[in-house]
């Protein structure tokens, strides 16, 4: 702990070592979205109930709004910005485009990161994808297209 009031936080974000000045109450969402300006990490409810802020911590999907930033000292965080670029889409991002799994786009980064982690966790059916993505809300109603995109990349 650097000093009691504002400890400096070290994170590896999208492969890059970052040192961040943040109050002890900061969530990982605050740090990523506001301090580091990784605005692909969306704030939908700030209460862990929508999944828009989903990021990967050491490869596992978590909700950044529920994560106290200080708890993640030294961890490797991956946000949507670290997955692919418009010029070089990740296969899952490309599948989202092809399947029109995007409408307003606000839940999209969270859906993609959640889907990516879910594929890594091992899913064997479309049913399992639906269940596994249920922590990511979508209000436009892109669900079937989202599941189709994830299923395609999962080889189902």
């Amino acid at each position, binding site marked *: 702990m650097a000093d009691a009031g504002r400890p400096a936080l070290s994170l590896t974000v999208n492969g890059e070592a970052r040192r961040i000045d943040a109050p002890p109450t900061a969530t990982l969402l605050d740090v990523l979205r506001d301090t580091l300006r990784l605005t692909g990490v969306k704030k939908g*409810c700030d209460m862990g109930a929508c999944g828009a802020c989903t990021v990967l911590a050491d490869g596992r999907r978590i909700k950044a709004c529920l994560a106290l930033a200080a708890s993640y000292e030294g961890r490797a965080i991956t946000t949507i910005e670290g997955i692919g670029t*418009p010029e070089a889409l990740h296969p899952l991002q490309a599948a989202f485009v092809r399947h029109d799994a995007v409408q*307003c786009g*606000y839940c999209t*980064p969270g859906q993609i990161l959640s889907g990516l982690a879910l594929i890594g966790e091992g899913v064997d059916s479309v049913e399992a994808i639906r269940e596994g993505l249920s922590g990511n809300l979508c209000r436009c*109603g892109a*669900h079937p297209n989202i599941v189709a995109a994830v299923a395609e990349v999962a080889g189902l």
Partner: protein
Amino acid sequence: MTRVESPVRLEAALKVTGRAVYEAETPMTGMLHAALVEAPIANGRVLGVDGGPARGLPGFADLVSYAEAEVFKPSGSTALAREPRIHFAGQPVALAVAGTLHEAEACARAVRLDLAAEPAVTAMDQALETAFAPDIVGRYPATTLRGDPGAALAEASLVLRNRYETAVNNHHPMEPHSVVCAWDGDRVVVHTGTQAIFATQRLVAHAFQIPADQVRVVSRFMGGGFGCKGQLWWPWMMWAILASRRTGRPVRLELTRAQLFNLVGRRQETVQDLAIGFDAEGRLTGIDHAVLGQTATHGDYADGTARVSRWLYACPNVATTHRIVRTNEPLPIPMRAPGVAPGLFALESALDEAAGRLGIDPVELRVRNYASKDPETDRPWSSNSLLDCYAAAERFGWSGRPAAGKARDGRWRIGWGMATSVYPVHHQPCRVRVRVEPDAGLLVQCGTQDFGQGAYTAIGQLAAEGLGLPMDNVRVELGDTDLPEGPFTGGSMVTASFTPAVETAMARLRAMVAERVAADGASPLADAAPDDLVFEGGLVRSRSRNAAEGLAEILARLAPDGLETEGASAAPENMAFSANAYGAIFVEVGVDPDLGEIRVRRVCGAFAAGRILNPLLARSQYVGGLIGGIGMALHEQVATDRASGRIVGDTFADYLIPVHADMPEFDVLMLDEDDPHLPGGVKGVGMLGTAGVQAAIANAVFHAVGKRVRRLPIRIEDVIG
């Protein structure tokens, strides 16, 4: 049938990579953050706002309330920001501004309010005696009478009289409302996710008494809206803009999810008394549809809930009435198929019940009552493919419908139900600017908004097709009042409004190219008549002779500065036709009567909505609408604490919307429909999915377990046992 291409969403790559910048994410130097101070009472007056305790806190920058907002030139849209009256619990009474969001929230908490509380009406049933007829419902009369429904119902061979109720719903776009604003002298830029940038611009200009061209409103990306990103957000946005002017610094205000429950509107709660009468052959002889709805004490709002009863079916005797009750609760605002969705829930549930009583198949009953012209105005339909939509019954397998209560799949009782869907066609004026560069790069600009429905793509597609260019050549700019004014986003009317404008603009561009190429002796197309030229595949080609030239070559040679023009469309006036888009929705549900669980398993929707520009995106719209309707049917309900008037359960853990695991299989059929009477032949698809599916689900539940549920949402307690 002409094959319609479905380019993928134009902005999709930005969205899937997190590079699409939503307005709250607009970077600004020296930004301050804002938080609202909420009233703890549901009715009363603010006697004083003591910011003293906040002023000493770290980062404090400003505090604005109704007193500071007196500088606004009064208008109805900013009334709540200017008056000390409290109409509902949680109503903002001040805005605290500080260096960080956490500091602003601490400052807001520290503000002391001196309040005079008064008794509050926290539910409609506490004030039924005060119900009154509003001036209008939507844009139509509140009360109508055709024929003599009283006599018709008295003489009918079958009469059903029932009460239907629909709960308060909230829109809940995934992106909360926000504003990032900054002044430069007496000019202001306002980044806010809004469905109406130009109306927002006019409001800001009016309130601050500056010319509209000194107000720039930007809404390039919007994380959904569904009706709530409009006027009810304005008072709080205006406080942020005022604070920005007072502090001379950019200010950001973002609503919390909890605030989306009461600050930005809701689907109106309804209690509907519906009587329908039939003759022995199942023809409707009389309808009496009386609607009671909630409104707030600071505004009279009424959805046109009973409107569908006026014209969906041929019926000679129809009475419709709407009454509203003012309560100390938030004000409703249009939400996904406003009026039509709750109205159809009642009407289409009643028709299903009647079909059972009459021993007529539910589809056949609707076919018998098909209206071959608009029964309300006597005008012909611009087009009406409803009967073709019903034919989708075959696709669903309707003729194999099991006997009620007989089909099972393990623990599930299976039920099938159907309903008609309908949504009226409306238009707004629209202007677009198009510009083609010498390299055949095409820019289209329109001051409308894309909140996820696909306006970027559809506009780009029309423009690309207009010059026969690939989508890669097109750039579309929307959501900025520096662009030509386009329609607000709502009522399923944006595509219908911009299509003729874009097509006009593209025709002008083609004419400009044709004129230049015809006059150019060096071109193989020299002297070609304009209507001899075809634009396709990046070429301009003659129909009559074997001659063609690349569009880029023509432009590089003949329009080195590019070509630019505008197109405009207006809402058609005095239409000789009535216009609706239609659908028929078939649903299979599973009900576990022991556990009370209800799952939609399969939805087949057939829709006819004029010309479909992009089937891929249209399908997404239909499915999205259906999912919204499933939420309304089975999940969504805002609960209000009667003692305090507070919303109980203002999180996504309490207010349930459907999740991935709730999704049925969707089969969407889009019928070809040429409508020669509508501009561009376009109707609108956004609302159709959300209209009708609620009744189809309720009808399927009845078919599965014999329980006729007339209140939405249908929940465990309604079907158990």
